[in-house]
């Protein structure tokens, strides 16, 4: 038994019901997540990436106990099956883009949700400070900006001190400063042993934050690991990028200004060094992984199969 294991998904499936084109009044199983197997370890930050409709939100909602597990099982660290109610006790869920509205205030909204969680009202002030909404705690919801609403949604997820925090596109609507402070908060929570699962379309937000990426495509996990290992698993073409200073090293080199040149090609070897001539090599490394490239490679591989 892995002592750090917090939750294990085995063959978890949830398919949404969609209108059946052949029978007007009937519905049939449509897209969703299929046969998902995943381990969540204590204190890790896991990035969930995939295209629109790949099943990220469905997976998060299923984990959060909002959607039922139609097939498969979710196990706790001891190996005991967890139903939706048990998952809701341990998981904090931040849905994507909640449009808080009305004359209630963030404080009163959090009070209501805290009572629904069992009445830990003493946590409200701390959570509001943590997400940076305490100065607006008594303003009307109608007056909050999108960024403040996003922070409030984050606060609702953190309210019950969950073991697992599920965040669906948490960076949407946040300014760069707020995004950076969110990253810091998530890192701090992970250090305290909270497992964080973040879904995002933007790998940039996840790089440097996540310990592991999980790539979803058509409701299935197609790869997991670090961004580099994902790229290698999928066979993503990642050429080496060399930045040199001095004379233009070759016809293909791209000028960066101030006498700097960027060359894209193979790994640095004796032949390449010879071709560079007198220019000084400033950096040499593989091109950063772009999520769009990664997803395109997954789709291309799926079509080939």
């Amino acid at each position: 038994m892995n002592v750090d294991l917090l939750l294990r998904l085995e063959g978890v499936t949830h398919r949404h019901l969609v209108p059946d084109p052949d029978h007007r009044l009937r519905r049939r199983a449509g897209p969703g997540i299929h046969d998902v197997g995943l381990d969540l370890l204590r204190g890790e930050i896991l990035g969930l990436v995939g295209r629109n409709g790949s099943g990220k939100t469905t997976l998060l909602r299923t984990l959060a106990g909002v959607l039922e597990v139609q097939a498969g099982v979710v196990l706790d660290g001891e190996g005991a099956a967890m139903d939706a109610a048990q998952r809701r006790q341990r998981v904090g869920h931040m849905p994507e883009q909640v449009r808080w509205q009305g004359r209630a205030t963030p404080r009163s909204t959090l009070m209501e949700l805290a009572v629904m969680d069992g009445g830990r009202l003493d946590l409200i002030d701390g959570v509001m400070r943590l997400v940076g909404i305490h100065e607006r705690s008594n303003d009307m919801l109608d007056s909050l900006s999108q960024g403040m609403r996003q922070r409030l949604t984050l606060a609702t997820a953190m309210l019950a001190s969950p073991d697992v925090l599920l965040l669906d596109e948490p960076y949407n609507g946040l300014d760069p400063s707020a995004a950076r402070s969110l990253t810091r908060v998530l890192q701090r929570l992970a250090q305290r042993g909270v497992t964080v699962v973040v879904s995002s379309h933007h790998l940039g937000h996840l790089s440097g934050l996540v310990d592991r990426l999980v790539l979803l495509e058509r409701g299935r996990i197609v790869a997991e690991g670090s961004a580099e290992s994902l790229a290698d698993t999928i066979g993503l073409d990642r050429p080496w990028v060399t930045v040199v200073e001095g004379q233009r090293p070759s016809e293909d080199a791209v000028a960066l200004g101030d006498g700097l040149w960027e060359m894209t090609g193979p790994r640095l070897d004796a032949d390449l060094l010879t071709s560079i001539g007198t220019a000084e090599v400033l950096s040499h490394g593989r091109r950063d992984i772009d999520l769009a490239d990664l997803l395109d490679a997954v789709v291309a591989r799926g079509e080939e199969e």
Partner: protein
Amino acid sequence: MNPIQQWAWLSGRRAWTLLVSVRSIVALPLLALAIPGAAWGLSDPRTALPAEIPLDTPMHILFVTSLFVLLTATLTSVLYAWDGISRDRASGVLEVRLGRAMSRRRQTAVLLGAHLTAAVVPVLVLSCIAVMIVQQRTGVWPAFADVAVFLTSTALVVTWYTVIALLASSYARDQGTAIAMGVGVWFLFTMLWLLITSVLAGLAGIEAGTQDPSWVQFEALLDLASPNGVYHHLLELRLPDVDRGVRAPAILGAAVAWTVVPTWVLLRRMERLVP
């Protein structure tokens, strides 16, 4: 907090939000004009209604007042409940709520508690005022049983409309559909039911709108399928001069069915609701 305190706290809070909302500015004056206003006018000894509808006793006055209750109290419950679920669903707040530790069954109980409190309490307060007005104007207190049946039936009909409107709201994916369903249900039972009854009577070979016993009984039977009809049946239990051929157990059974079945369907629906 124990579960009862939790339910009371959450229901009371949400009910208060509804009672101080803009929609109350529309609903409460309507209720005040319709219920105590009708009782005031109908208890005037000079008032004479068409078709020789009697206003001889306090219960007769309350019975006719119930027509105004049906028009306004049911509309009020729809006004409060038409977006009770769809609004939170459209804004994403429903997903936040469904993700809480509290079970969906108990969340539904909170939802019902809030909307019923918001709709029933003002109607009952105004109905009590109507009873006092009748006493002041006629000099006769209605019998305790008459008042109890009037208030209980009124609370029940508001409950039925609230549950039905919440149920409709749970099926609506946008606000336009939600209001269409809420108002549609109200319109069906308040305005169109007589038309439906007449058409069905015609199809059954019964001449509608006459004093013929077969029509009276047919209409009374079909009234059991309408919350408004059951409301009037319940009130007629306290009017000895009215007998439309439907026995009390059938009326009480219909009242129980209108209470239990939509509530059960709503609970089942909430258990499976996808945000």
